[in-house]
Every structure is written in structure tokens, then in C-alpha cells.
């Protein structure tokens, strides 16, 4: 049975559109991993400095921006000081800026003291190496092109090492990404590496969670939906779950139909 693939596409688009307007509202259970991740962030010492790295761009923002949002809520509720910056993902800096600005206002975070935005720096793993030796020197200017020397938070964190930074929260979707952070910054140190991962590479990265090299992982849009519930701020992650249910049923149906056709033809 050969169906025109365009018919399959049409079915898919219609199904997605319908669920976007009329959600099913199925409950989302919370996994152990999500709790572990939440606790890893929650249990950092008071007044810690966390480095949050939005290592993504608009292509993957659909999944990672809601995670960043929930992470910021949790960190600001715990009153951690936040350094926001990435390397190698130019557009990630702009995306993160629009997310952190309203949340920082909500929590009365002072720029330069409670949080700072480094923007995006070129170089990937190479930049991380230099930040380990001299963070302000490697970053030079902040997101708004202001010199970093004037900010108390930067004076307090001269290097990206365990003496100054308690955790690195990396939103990861490719290279450079979490593996570079692991190899260059957190491997063999007390800095906790917690990642927000696109759903696709979850199995791949799971082995680093099992080995303890990552202290936690928000696993795809599902993980985000779980984490949002733990933080108590339901958002876009939770909202996307109904579409995921419908897509799952559809793909499963297509696989089954395709195979029925295949098996009957074989006989």
C-alpha cells in the first residue's frame, strides 16, 4: 500500500494544529531524574555563584528556552548569584537576555551585583580554557559591550574554577556544548555540571548522568515539563506535552500501518 507521503504530512500538520488550539490536558508524572536535578540545584550552598550557559540558538529554542526560564526561577528563589553567558552560540545570548530581564526585575536582582550577562563569546572549548585561567580577561565586555571591571560580581569571580563557581548549568544542543564544559571546566572539580538537554540527545548524555559526571539533567521537553512542576512555574514545556502525545500516537500508527503493508506483501 503506497500512500503519497504528502498525505502523511497533511495528516500530521492538521493533528498538530488541532492540539495546539484544543489541548487534552493529560497529567505529566515527575521522574526521579527531574527530582535529582531539582535537588542538585536546590542544595547548593547559600549565596553560591552559578554559571548559566545558554548554548543554543533559535533552532532549538522551542525546547531549551522554557528550561532556562525555569532554571532562572529556581536560582533566583534560592538567591544565587548568576553569571549568564555562552561561547559559540551568538544568538543564544539575545534569547537569554529577553528571558532573564523580566525575571530579574520580578526578583529585584541588581545587574552587576546579583547577576551579569556576558553575552556570547567565540571560541568554544578554547574560550572555556581561557575563562578557566582568567574569566574577565576572556570575556572582556558584557552583553551590552560595557567593560567588566566595574562590576562587583566580576571582581568576585576572577576565574571559572571551583573556588568561585558552585555549579554550571548548561543548556546543550550541539557542539560546543556540555561535553566541552565537562572536559574543560568541571571534570575533576567540585563544580556541579547540570545540563538542560534537547530530547534527542538524552540517551546519549544519560551515560554521563549515570556515571555522575553530570549532577543532573533536564531531559527534553518532557523533562522540562516535570521540572517546571517542581519549580512551581508551569510553562511552555508543560504546554507542549499534549502535542507530543498526539505525535506519538500518529507515528506509532504510521509505523504499524507501514509494517502491516510490508508483512502482507511478503506473504
Amino acid at each position, binding site marked *: 500500500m503506497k500512500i503519497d507521503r*504528502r498525505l502523511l*504530512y497533511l495528516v500530521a500538520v492538521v493533528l*498538530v*494544529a488541532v492540539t*495546539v*488550539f484544543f489541548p487534552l490536558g493529560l497529567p505529566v508524572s515527575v521522574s526521579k531524574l527531574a527530582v535529582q536535578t531539582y535537588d542538585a540545584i536546590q542544595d547548593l550552598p547559600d549565596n553560591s555563584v552559578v554559571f548559566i550557559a545558554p548554548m543554543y540558538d*533559535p*533552532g*532549538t*529554542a*522551542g*525546547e531549551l528556552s522554557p528550561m532556562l526560564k525555569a532554571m532562572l526561577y529556581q536560582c533566583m528563589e534560592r538567591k544565587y548569584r548568576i553569571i549568564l553567558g555562552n561561547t559559540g552560540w*551568538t544568538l543564544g545570548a539575545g534569547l537569554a537576555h529577553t528571558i532573564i530581564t523580566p525575571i530579574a526585575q520580578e526578583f529585584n536582582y541588581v545587574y552587576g551585583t546579583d547577576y551579569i550577562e556576558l553575552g556570547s563569546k*567565540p571560541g568554544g*572549548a578554547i574560550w572555556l580554557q581561557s575563562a578557566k585561567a582568567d574569566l574577565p580577561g576572556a570575556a572582556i565586555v558584557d552583553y551590552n559591550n560595557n567593560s567588566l571591571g566595574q562590576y562587583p560580581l566580576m571582581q568576585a569571580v576572577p576565574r571559572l574554577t571551583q573556588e568561585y563557581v558552585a555549579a554550571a548549568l548548561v543548556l546543550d544542543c550541539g557542539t560546543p556544548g556540555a*561535553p566541552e564544559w*565537562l*572536559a*574543560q571546566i568541571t*571534570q*575533576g572539580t567540585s563544580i556541579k555540571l547540570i545540563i538542560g538537554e*534537547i*530530547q*534527542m*540527545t*538524552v*540517551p*546519549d548524555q544519560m*551515560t*554521563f548522568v*549515570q*556515571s*555522575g*559526571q553530570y549532577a543532573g539533567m533536564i531531559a*527534553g*521537553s*518532557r523533562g522540562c515539563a516535570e521540572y517546571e512542576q517542581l519549580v512551581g512555574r508551569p510553562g511552555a514545556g508543560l504546554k*507542549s506535552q499534549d*502535542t*507530543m502525545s498526539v*505525535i*506519538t500516537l500518529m*507515528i506509532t500508527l504510521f509505523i504499524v500501518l507501514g509494517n502491516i503493508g510490508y508483512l502482507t506483501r511478503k506473504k
Partner: protein
Amino acid sequence: MHPHISTDLGLWCQAICTLAIYTYLYKDNPIYRVAENVFLGLATAYWFVFNFFNFIKPAVVEWIGKNGQYHYVLAIILGLLIFMRYVPSLSWIARYPMSFWVGYGTGYTLAFTPAVWLDQITASFVALNSLQNILIFVGILCTLVYFFFTLAKENPVVGGIAEVGKWYIMIALGSAFGNTVLYRWNLFLARANMLLFQWLGFAS
């Protein structure tokens, strides 16, 4: 649910670009080809401009000009040598920059990956006291055996172990697959949200 179409030029541009690419799903057509070539042109130019202002210009102005680190002049010359490939009699000179880049990459592989993978080995030192740990232990060993290239798979013991390894591999790949399918639709969801809520202005 009444649409409220945007009047923002940027959003219109985004919507047109998005729809132009999706026409390919029907079939290859002139609209897609225009979008494809516009994108090719923009992308090639963008990366050059980005690299020029992030690496080449700082190198010349800051490092060489201000700091007097004149050895970076050699790095620029080394990069330029790749263009010797267009001079047939001197094209072999282009192998010099190439060998530097390959050598750097080779060194990088040797220098930075072992530490990460050694931790993967020590993480496999699991106490064989639960079903989960035993399954992990057996799986790692069988999968490694699957990748032995010089052991005869005709040998029933080796063949059997490698077969189990292959099951593990397929389960791992199946997990990756299942996760990816959903993730990919998230990407489409992001585009659909742009079209429906931002451009056409449906209330979300």
C-alpha cells in the same frame, strides 16, 4: 480565536521565508529554489563576516597592533598559504596549513578525550548485586565484543556474545530514535507557533 494579522515587516519576512521552504514538502519548485539560493548566499557571507570581526580583526588590531605579538602575523600568512592551491606549480605549499590544522585536531583528540572516557570506565565498576547493575555490566562487555574486528564471529561463543551486544546497540539506538522523533516535532511546533500566534495573531 480571531486572527489579528501582524503589520510588522520583519514578521512578514520570517513568515514568507518559512512558507517558501515548506513548499518543498509538496515538491521541488522555483519558490524553494529561490529561498535555497538566498539562504546559501546569506549564510556564506554571514560566516565570513562573523569570523572576520571575531578572529581576524582582533588579531590584527589588538594582538599584533596593540600587544605587539608579532608571531600572529605568521598565523595569518599560514592561513593565506591555503590559497596556493590555485597556483598549480606551487599547490603543494597549501599542504602546510592543512597539516597544521590536522595536527592540531589530532593532538586535541589525544589530549582532551581520555580523561572523559576514563571516567566512563570507572563508572562501569558497578557492584554486581542488582539486576540493573548486572544488565549494565553484561551490556557494556557484549557491546565491546561486537566491535572486535579481528575475532571470528563464526566462533559460536564470540558470535553469541556479539549478537547480545548487537541487541544492546539496537536498544540504545531505539531509545535515541524514540526521543528524537518527539524532539523534531518540537522544532516544527516552534515554527507553527511563530506562524499562528505571532504572524497571524491568533490568541494563544
